[in-house]
């Protein structure tokens, strides 16, 4: 077991996963393709009928963009709702690579440009150029994570009729205080 896998384990031996519900929308070559029900932090899930925040990011085209395959799932049919999970640590790594890495490049370049030229225009251009370099670094980082299979969601279970986006997989730790 590598270090990342160990970090994903809790004291009870269960992996710490971030869960989400998804619906099977197609079966291609025996591989189910799923569409996430949760497209925003609120309003896109099965509970949206009772929620006033739906509407943003829930149009069909945006849902279609987020379709993903689930090759390790048991036999599913179109219309099934399932619960999938991704590793908490992988989520944090992915967030860091996608959002923090370009900022590091940008501020590095901006600091150097400001120190050398002391001009708003030159600093701006250098930061925008560094953003492009940062996005290339994001691509490489994403490829590295993907190669380790850390970004692939895992099948957890079939979703119950009352199961919505407000689910968690974290086993309840015992508090001493």
């Amino acid at each position, binding site marked *: 077991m590598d270090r990342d896998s160990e970090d994903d384990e809790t004291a009870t031996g269960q992996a710490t996963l971030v869960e989400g519900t998804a619906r099977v929308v197609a079966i291609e070559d025996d591989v189910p393709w799923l569409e996430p029900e949760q497209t925003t932090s609120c309003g896109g899930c099965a509970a949206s009928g009772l929620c006033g925040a739906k509407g943003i990011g829930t149009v069909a085209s945006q849902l279609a*963009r987020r379709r993903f395959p689930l090759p390790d799932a048991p036999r599913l049919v179109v219309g099934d709702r399932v619960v999938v999970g991704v590793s908490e640590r992988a989520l944090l790594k992915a967030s860091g690579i996608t959002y923090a890495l370009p900022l590091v490049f940008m501020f590095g370049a901006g600091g150097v440009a400001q120190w050398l030229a002391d001009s708003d225009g030159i600093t701006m251009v250098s930061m925008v150029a560094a953003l492009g370099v940062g996005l290339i670094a994001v691509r490489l980082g994403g490829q590295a994570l993907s190669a380790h299979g850390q970004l692939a969601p895992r099948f957890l279970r079939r979703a119950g009729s009352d199961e919505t986006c407000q689910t968690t997989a974290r086993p309840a730790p015992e508090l001493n205080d």
Partner: protein
Amino acid sequence: MQEYVLLMVGAALVNNVILARFLGLCSFMGVTTRVDTAIGMGLATTFVITVSSMGNWAIEGYLLEPYGLGYLRTVTFILVIAGAVQFTEMTVRKISPPLFQMLGIYLPLITTNCAVLGVALIMVETKLSFIAATLFAFASSLGYSLVMVIFAGLRERLALSQVPRIFAGPPIGFIVASLLALAFLGFSGINTN
């Protein structure tokens, strides 16, 4: 250098976006049920606030102010923010589809996050240089992320606590948020001028 440090401390802690300016309260209550999602949302918001503030500073400095178009500021900034979110979404989707599938849930919510617009409007009012304005926006979003993560940690503990039924759920969350705001009030004694 000292002025930049004081500017960032002031933006992140003394005038915290959530607890002092009361901006971004929707995501503050909506995405803070778990620490990991709060960190993800915080990082995404940090990126969008910083990038959109750079664009807003350029538009304000080179277009709106010289040509007396200040009355278009709010509309223009909203367009820039929406553009920055769309740019981020399209770029991440293009360069790394697996990352997009994992993180795309945060981006639509940022479009409707008033903290992004609030930071941009405060930034142009203070008439900062480009690098100072960008650092101000970055520090403001760091303060936003810090509060999100602290509050998410508190809510994870609250979920395991026995709370009187009448206070269970959002009510105890709001009470804890108010106590957190009181704690952050302590930073107001720091002189960042």
